[in-house]
């Protein structure tokens, strides 16, 4: 193989710096403007934060599942989700502003209000600030431990070629998937469901997971296509791999729709005020139009486009669909979070953009800075050849 396995030139040197500047400008702008309206700032920040967090978490899940199933096809592209999940320590640092904005975001954190609220006082043993922080530490602790473990073993193998590392990753993946399922579910309950603390949905964890894993696979595909555009990984990640990523994306598009509908359907059927309250807020005013838009472009359009084998294998169409789905993932989270703040309809704020580009810049900068330091694919993985030779029949 004459494949280049190191980033160089623009993507290694200039891109991380440019992204960092974009990030710092975005965040500083958001902080300056946000002083006028701290609640808007924290809500905008939360949406963008969740967008990048769910992508990193989805990537962690992707890596775990590859080891758990002893997958051969994905070895050549595995370094990309490994880099995405290695941003989880960064996401832990970026969580600090949310802790600072607890009172703006989560009204259960107001102890006086809780005293006058029968439901919230019943929930207080779980929904209180100290325990919330303990749980957050627990989630990030597990995620950082898992992502470091898989990243370190995989990159160590680049040097030593030790096959035992593959086996130890396979062993840990079984425990990892359990830890992941619990922490991911409870983090969705803590950070998203408790925005409306009277409301409850037993499906919120898997709902956020479904959107996250879909966006993560799309991001893997998009980063691979971007590297391909710059001439990297052309022989290691072939049309066959994009085809398979496309199948996963198609599957998760359906999975997301299935979960999103199931959550809505059960609440609609039962018609209990504590539950329907949430959906009523989310379809008030033009939020309803927004919801329909999400259904059409997060499910209907990509479903029909990616049902076709030719669309999955045509890299231009493929790039278009994954880009659409990534944008839709952001808009979906916007729809999940924002109606709790803008009750009467969509209210687009400059802070939404500043927070997004701020976090995007920092996230992309760290991602590509790290990418430049390691091989672009697991060069000594025992199943690398199997992956490179892989063909869809």
């Amino acid at each position, binding site marked *: 193989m004459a494949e280049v396995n190191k980033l160089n030139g623009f993507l290694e040197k200039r891109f991380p710096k440019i992204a960092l500047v974009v990030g710092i400008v975005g965040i500083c702008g958001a902080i300056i403007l946000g002083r006028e309206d701290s609640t808007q700032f924290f809500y905008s920040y939360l949406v963008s934060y969740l967008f990048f967090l769910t992508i990193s978490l989805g990537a962690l899940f992707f890596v775990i599942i590859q080891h758990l199933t002893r997958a051969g096809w994905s070895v050549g592209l595995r370094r990309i989700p490994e880099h995405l999940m290695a941003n989880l320590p960064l996401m832990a640092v970026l969580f600090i502003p949310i802790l600072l904005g607890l009172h703006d975001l989560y009204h259960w954190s107001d102890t006086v209000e809780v005293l006058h609220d029968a439901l919230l006082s019943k929930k207080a043993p779980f929904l209180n600030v100290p325990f919330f922080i303990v749980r957050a530490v627990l989630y990030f602790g597990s995620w950082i431990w898992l992502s470091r473990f898989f990243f370190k073993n995989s990159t160590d193998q680049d040097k030593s070629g030790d096959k035992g590392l593959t086996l130890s990753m396979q062993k840990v993946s079984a425990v990892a998937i359990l830890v992941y399922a619990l922490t991911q579910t409870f983090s969705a309950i803590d950070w998203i469901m408790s925005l409306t603390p009277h409301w409850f949905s037993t499906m919120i964890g898997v709902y956020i997971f479904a959107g996250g894993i879909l966006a993560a696979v799309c991001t893997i595909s998009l980063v691979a296509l971007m590297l391909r555009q710059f001439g990297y990984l052309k022989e290691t990640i072939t049309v066959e791999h994009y085809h398979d990523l496309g199948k996963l994306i198609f599957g998760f598009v359906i999975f997301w729709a299935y979960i999103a*509908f199931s959550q*809505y*359907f059960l609440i*609609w*059927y039962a*018609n209990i005020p504590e539950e329907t309250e949430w959906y009523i807020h989310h379809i008030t005013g033009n939020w309803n139009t927004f919801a329909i838009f999400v259904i059409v472009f997060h499910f209907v359009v990509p479903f029909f486009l990616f*049902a*076709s*084998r030719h669309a999955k294998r045509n890299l231009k169409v493929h790039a278009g669909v994954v880009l659409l789905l990534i944008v839709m993932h952001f808009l979906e989270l916007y729809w999940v979070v924002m109606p709790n703040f803008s009750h009467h309809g969509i209210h687009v704020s400059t802070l939404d953009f500043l927070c997004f580009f701020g976090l995007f810049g920092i996230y992309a900068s760290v991602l590509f800075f790290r990418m430049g330091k390691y091989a672009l694919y697991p060069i000594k993985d025992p199943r690398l050849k199997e992956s490179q030779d892989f*063909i869809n*029949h």
Partner: protein
Amino acid sequence: MAISVIGEFKDPTELLRAAKKTNKAGYKTFDAHSPFPIHGMDDAMDLKGSVLGWIVLCGGLTGCVAGFGLQAWVATEAYPLVISGKPLFSYQAFVPVTFEVTVLFAAFAAVFGMFGLNKLPQLYNRLFKHRDFSKKAASHGFFVSIASELDSDEASIVDFLKSIGATNVSGVKE
């Protein structure tokens, strides 16, 4: 009258090579027979993509419309019953059944479409007249068969199959 000439090959690799050569020699009505699927055979025989996917899509869309339509008609026209105070046309409630009927029709379209494209069920095929073919083709034999409308082609096809390494070559008539 039509004839088919059958030649046997010793393993999947030989069969793959033979299919490639037969296709290259310009024969249009030929088939390769193996007890199990062989990777790369579609390319070797230069087969076009199947239209089955489009048949399944049509089946699925038909099911989708039929399932939704049936429920909408039943709920609003045929037996209008108020259920838990919801409107008669509660499209949300129709979704699960619509989904199931879509899947059912798509699956039927896939199975019966496959039967149709493979011209099944077929009670008789002249290839079975070849003694070794009917004995081995489903267990351990690898064959190429070339069909022709003209009986006079038999000798040239026999020569061709022998030239690409076939053994046990013989023609069968209708």
